[in-house]
């Protein structure tokens, strides 16, 4: 039985938002490394009302987490619309299609097709990867399930195929840079309805990418959601710049985070002192009278360090949110950008102040699909 979709491919809230021309906001929710549903419900509560749909990651960075489909089904129960992430790393075409039938049965309507981070990054580096199909072929397969009612093998699905709005990822910062607009064109040709980009911390380069995309007319065929995320610290900004493959971070973000804590007493001298004192304690015998003085200094240091850490974190987080709002405002002006994808990793509470600050609240009501 194919449900009537009133001219929509799927009728999900995400599709309605895209079609309405409103500026779209998606978020991200990472399932727990455990089996408790409560954690998902808590995160969903932090996002509900502030995003139009939320990505549910699939063993992100190749670390085992609760299934994205199971977590997505819980998110559906919470009244939030999931975008199920599906990687080609862990499943072959049989498992993917089987899981998609299940996902559809559980009320999931949006799917993001990914290659998947290599397993060497995760907690099972010795695992065998699958990559039976690639993300491009996955996009095509999911489109064919929906539009042709056929499985990958060509068999007809008599009751009609599962219907998903098909998403894909785009990394404007990966190399070869000149290839990236072409790769997007290929994903569009394969059937992508929307794409979400890698985190953007280099807006000039993103604009350069978008200029090519607009010249090729791709923005008229696919909804492009620009990826943003609030930084939490200088360390995080530097980590993203230096360690995350396919990521470029402009100096202004590093500088912004560095400036955010000027005026706060520097922490490193205190932590170094603490380390030195602890080392001294190790050297001394249990009854050594010199211990008392060292322990007293340590006791005095502890609350000072804690206080400075708290102050730094507060300033960093405020700055991170502020810079994210500025990013959104700047990206909103870029031709061809249909919305933003906010990745507040393990910091879902940031989504409300970000969307609020960027003037994106309340989220428009574009009508329910009546089937969920």
């Amino acid at each position, binding site marked *: 039985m194919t449900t009537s979709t009133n001219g929509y491919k799927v009728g999900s809230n995400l599709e309605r938002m895209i079609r309405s021309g409103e500026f779209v906001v998606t978020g991200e929710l990472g399932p727990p490394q455990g089996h408790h549903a409560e954690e998902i419900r808590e995160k969903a509560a932090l996002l509900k009302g502030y995003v139009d749909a939320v990505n549910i990651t699939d063993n992100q960075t190749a670390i085992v987490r609760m299934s994205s489909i199971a977590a997505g089904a819980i998110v559906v129960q919470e009244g939030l619309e999931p975008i199920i992430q599906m990687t080609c790393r862990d499943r072959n075409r049989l498992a993917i299609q089987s899981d998609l039938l299940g996902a559809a049965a559980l009320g999931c309507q949006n799917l993001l097709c990914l290659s998947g981070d290599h397993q060497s990054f995760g907690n099972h580096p010795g695992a065998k990867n699958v990559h039976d199909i690639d*993300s491009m*072929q996955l996009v095509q397969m999911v489109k064919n399930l929906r539009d042709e009612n056929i499985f990958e093998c060509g068999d007809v699905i008599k009751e009609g195929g599962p219907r998903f709005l098909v998403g894909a990822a785009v990394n404007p910062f*990966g190399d070869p840079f000149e290839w990236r607009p072409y790769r997007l064109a*290929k994903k569009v040709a394969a059937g992508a309805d929307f794409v979400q980009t890698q985190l953007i911390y280099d807006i000039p380069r993103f604009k350069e990418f978008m200029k090519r995309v607009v010249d090729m007319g791709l923005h008229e065929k696919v909804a492009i959601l620009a990826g943003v995320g609030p930084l939490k610290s200088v360390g995080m900004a530097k980590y993203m710049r230096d360690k995350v*493959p396919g990521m470029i971070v402009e100096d202004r973000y590093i500088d912004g985070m560095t400036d955010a804590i000027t005026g706060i007493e520097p922490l490193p001298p205190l932590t170094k002192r603490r380390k030195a004192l602890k080392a001294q304690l190790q050297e001394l015998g249990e009854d050594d009278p010199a211990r008392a003085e060292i322990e007293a200094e340590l006791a005095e240091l502890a609350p000072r360090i804690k206080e400075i850490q708290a102050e730094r974190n507060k300033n960093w987080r405020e700055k991170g949110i502020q810079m994210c709002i500025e990013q959104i405002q700047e990206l909103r002006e870029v031709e061809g950008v249909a919305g933003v994808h906010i990745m507040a990793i393990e910091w879902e509470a940031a989504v409300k102040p970000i969307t609020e600050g960027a003037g994106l609240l309340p989220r428009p009501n574009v009508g329910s699909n009546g089937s969920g």
Partner: protein
Amino acid sequence: MIVAEQKPLNEIKTMIADAERVLLVGCGTCVTVCFAGGTKEVDLLATSLRMSTKLDGNGKVVDEFTVQRQCEWEYNEPLKEKLDDYDLVVSLGCGVGVQTLNEQFPQKQFVPGLNTAFMGLPTEQGVWEERCAACGNCILDKTGGICPIARCAKQLLNGPCGGSQNGVCEIESDVPCAWQLIWERANDLGQIDRLMELQPAKDWRTSRDGGPRKIVREDLRLVAHEEE
């Protein structure tokens, strides 16, 4: 060629622990060329095992022999008469060689002295790199002569993933991104449009996924086989 490397000495010692008399058998083909299992390496390993087991207080007899090609029955025939003198044979051939010997001389056990790594080539003295994964259905015409099955960590058929940066793969900074190479080559050949063709899901039946593979050439068989 098939590229292999020697197993750690301690692992080989564990495998031969229960034997008094051991024969090492090298192979004169691929593993000789990649300095893993030819006459020289057999000699070196035999010496190491003799010295090491002697120091351990249970010195073993370790003899040496190298055949031209362990993966063909006829080259292994000269081994036949020697085998009775040994409790165990360590093959320094590739995995094909080890299995050929076990199959050919079932009265004796042959254990592997090498880890067979991949099919590739030496890119400089002392460096070998993988080039072919034997998927059984070559697509090198579509990818500028660079294989994404063997050389892309995710075996992608439709372009690079998001982890390609500055020409290297996300898994390791000394691994070139296969798709960067394919892109550059297509650019040089003026064939970017070919990369825009959507490559469909690959039929892996010709690869290992179809089960153990076999090629039968009736035109070459000496005895005609008539299947019902």
